[in-house]
């Protein structure tokens, strides 16, 4: 029965070579270490095998919304004042409803003015009226959702910039599906998460605002100075350094305007430098548009105080001696490392909102290599046990099953190499499981063949019947396990996904080896037997 046997054997040999190439590529040296090196190049190891840090962070999108609504408040104030409408404008709940702005005391005659103002100048906001001449301005639902999503996308970009500058190889930074506004960050080989987290977390919200007073030794002192009530367009911010007027704890406070003259978005570049005293400092350059705004602000505020605010803390305060265009220097008792990190953070752009860490896992490289060793040992032992058993129980047919199994493993690893999928520790377990479950197909077929032989069929007929009957069952069992694996992949996280991937690949490979390859080997064996000679199947 030589029907296409030759072609089938060529297909199998071709498959073998193809997937072998997927595992080791073309090794530079044909030696033990050369092969291992080839293997390391092709197969991606997961964090739990390589060591590294895994983080899940949540973008505090309300921060970004607050920035937008603060600007809206400022615009409202300026415009209303220009039309001589005086109203009390506040944000009643910046924590939970950051987009809500309430205006009290708007005279009824001005309501149409107010409406046209909002629709012209604040197109993303809705205006609703309330009792007693109060009006509420809040963001439109779509605009709000867009703003929040944009904050997440921007955060991902910024974090990616910062991590790139750190030189981490193959980092993963992506939106995490499980929750709201969550980002997944995986940094292979990073064994010091502390520094990385600080660099990522710094919002580096740089703002240059007007300073109205300070340094005060405490918040109470500042309030007293202003007669107990702060002007509505000013707020208190803590200072970064310990000054001569420090109260207990060394914290100083400044009275700063709510609005900014210039923000981090107007930055074009930032660099490490030294100030006039030779101390480490950071120099910055503004964009064209930013430079123009800064020039007009400083031009009209000569003699006033400027505050450089970083992450809502006052970095330094300086007097505006004359108009500043687009260059400046920030100093404030930095160390060399701090200026390096800070200029890098400023260059990468500001985070649009704060981030909070929800999950942190760090696998040390020592554990990673121990895990690989243990996983490979278990795989080899498990595989050997199965190979030997098949030989003992099924005699010569056992060789058939063993060849299929080994080919199965090669195809599985080749799949991994080609697809670039990540091999994790559960993934290695998946390989081991594939060996166990894969041999099931062979068992099904062989048992059926034995039954048919017992019922008096000839070897060729028994083989035909065996494969025919078992095929349906093999398909059923493989499909159900693959469906399980798909669900695991959808709902699982990194290591579990690795398991789902190797299990699925292994089952697909098994469909090929157990049915096609085993059949070809049987056919080849049968073609060399004389009529009536028995089939060695135990």
């Amino acid at each position: 029965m030589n029907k296409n046997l030759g072609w089938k054997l060529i297909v199998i040999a071709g498959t073998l070579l193809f997937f072998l190439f997927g595992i080791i590529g073309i090794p530079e040296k044909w030696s033990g270490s050369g092969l291992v090196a080839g293997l390391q190049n092709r197969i991606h190891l997961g964090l739990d095998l390589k060591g590294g840090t895994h983080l899940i962070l949540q973008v505090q999108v309300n921060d970004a919304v607050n920035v937008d609504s603060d600007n809206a408040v400022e615009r409202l104030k300026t415009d209303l004042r220009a039309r001589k409408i005086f109203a009390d404008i506040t944000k009643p709940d910046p924590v939970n409803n950051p987009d809500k702005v309430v205006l009290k005391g708007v005279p009824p005659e001005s309501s149409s003015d107010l409406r046209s103002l909002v629709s012209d100048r604040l197109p993303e906001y809705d205006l609703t009226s309330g009792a007693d001449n109060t009006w509420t301005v809040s963001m439109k639902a779509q605009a709000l959702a867009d703003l929040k999503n944009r904050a997440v996308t921007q955060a991902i970009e910024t974090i990616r910039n910062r991590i790139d500058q750190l030189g981490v190889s193959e980092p993963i930074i992506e939106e995490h599906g499980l929750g709201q506004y969550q980002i997944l960050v995986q940094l292979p080989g990073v064994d010091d998460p502390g520094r990385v987290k600080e660099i990522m977390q710094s919002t580096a919200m740089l703002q240059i605002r007007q300073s109205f007073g300070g340094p005060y030794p405490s918040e109470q002192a500042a309030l007293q100075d202003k007669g107990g009530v702060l002007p509505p367009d000013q707020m208190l911010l803590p200072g970064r350094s310990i000054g001569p007027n420090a109260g207990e704890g060394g914290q100083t406070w400044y009275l700063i305007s709510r609005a900014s003259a210039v923000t981090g978005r107007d930055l074009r570049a930032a660099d490490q430098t030294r100030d006039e005293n030779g101390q480490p400092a950071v120099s910055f350059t503004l964009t064209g548009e930013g430079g123009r705004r800064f020039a007009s602000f400083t031009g009209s505020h000569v003699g006033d105080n400027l505050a450089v605010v970083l992450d809502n803390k006052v970095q330094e305060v300086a007097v505006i001696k004359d108009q500043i265009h687009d260059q400046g220097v920030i100093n404030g008792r930095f160390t060399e490392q701090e200026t390096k990190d800070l200029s890098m953070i400023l260059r990468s752009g500001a985070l649009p909102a704060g981030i909070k860490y929800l999950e942190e896992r760090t696998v040390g490289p020592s554990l990673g290599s121990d895990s690989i060793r243990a996983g490979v040992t278990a795989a080899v032992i498990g595989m050997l046990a199965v190979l030997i058993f098949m030989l003992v129980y099924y005699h010569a047919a056992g060789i058939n099953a063993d060849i299929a199994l080994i080919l199965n493993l090669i195809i599985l690893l080749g799949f991994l190499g080609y697809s670039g999928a990540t091999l994790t520790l559960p993934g290695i377990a998946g390989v081991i499981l594939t060996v166990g479950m894969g041999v099931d197909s062979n068992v099904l077929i062989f048992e059926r063949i034995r039954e048919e032989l017992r019922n008096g069929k000839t070897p060729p007929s028994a083989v035909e019947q065996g494969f025919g009957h078992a095929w349906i069952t093999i398909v059923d069992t493989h499909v159900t396990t693959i469906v399980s694996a798909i669900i695991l992949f959808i709902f699982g996280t990194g290591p579990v996904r690795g398991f789902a991937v190797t299990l699925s690949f292994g089952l697909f490979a098994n469909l090929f080896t157990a049915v096609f390859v085993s059949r070809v080997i049987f056919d080849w064996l049968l073609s060399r037997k004389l009529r009536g000679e028995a089939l060695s199947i135990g």
Partner: protein
Amino acid sequence: MEFFRNANIDFLGKKWYFLAFSLVFSVAGVFSMAFWHGIPYGVDFRGGTLVYVKFAQTPDNNVIRASMDRAGLRNARIQSYGSAGSNEVLIDVSEQETNEQALDRGKTQIINALETNAPSGKQDLNNSSFLTVKTFLLQKDPLRLGTDADQRYTAQAQAIVNYRDKVKSGVLQSMDELKTAVDPAVVASLSDGFFLSNFGVRNVEIVGPQVGSQLRRQALLATAYSLAGMLVYLAFRFEWIYGVAAVITVFHDTLITVGAFSLLNKEISLTVIAAILTLIGYSNNDTIVVFDRIRENLKLMRREKLSDIVNRSINQTLSRTILTAGLTFLTVLALYLFGGEVLKGFSLALVIGILIGTYSSIAIAAPILVAYQDWRAERGKPVALAAAARDANRREKVKAKV
């Protein structure tokens, strides 16, 4: 060589024994989950901080606990981890210490508490990052390289860290051990900036409360979808009663496995859930093989009782069932014994699951099929399974003749 040649065991007849056996284990498991150990959620599901530490010498858990108490971590759970002689300890700080305002505060406190003899101004070489070592070497320049220093010192720092991690499993006992890996001048200079503590941190897992509840929900959803998918596929390939029988079987398997974890007080982590979903797939496989044979025999054996057909089907597939179970069990046992500590929960779930999954296809799934059809036949309702319909038909014919 062949086991079970021409087996002819009356499995269905023993169904009450099987039921009793299953009931005993299910109830024991449920009792344990409700009243004894509860469901032992791992850190993935309950949130918390876990720090895995390897010590140079065998650690005294009481000493460690005292250090934790001194640092204010009163509810720290200290547990020996790994094989004997590995000197590994797991320090577990409960959920209260792990809130999202300062997620890694627990970890920092633990590490500070363990570093009892730190000379000021020096860093712990056993817990320093590659970058820290490289920065120090670049500054110190013990080989007096000047230019081209970056590449050389990167290689040296990498060699130091690799030796510590891959050869010494993360804990160096003395600086001299490094002399085999790097230049002696470099080793000598290290003592100026580094000391060696008696521990190395191998693994850290910090899960905030928000993520913990998300993962719990995901695990439940995945299991529910798995079961639903199975039901649909089987109803489509066979008849819906087959699907129901399979789902009940798999539910039984999951219950006993989770109950076993509760009885043994082993933690259920994400990988354990993955193992449970896998064993759902495996148990299903087994059940399908028996069902396939039943379906085939229903067509062939047109004159026999349903219970005889089912018994015969089980006996015919017995060889395959035991063999596959045995071989898969062999591989999973290898994983449990040799696969390392990290996979212990996963492999334990599979070990239990494969045994129970094999047992349940014979002891639970088949009897349900038969019991259901008998029940429908008794009620005189139209019967789904062809054989049972024939039985009912024959009874009618016999009555009519008389």
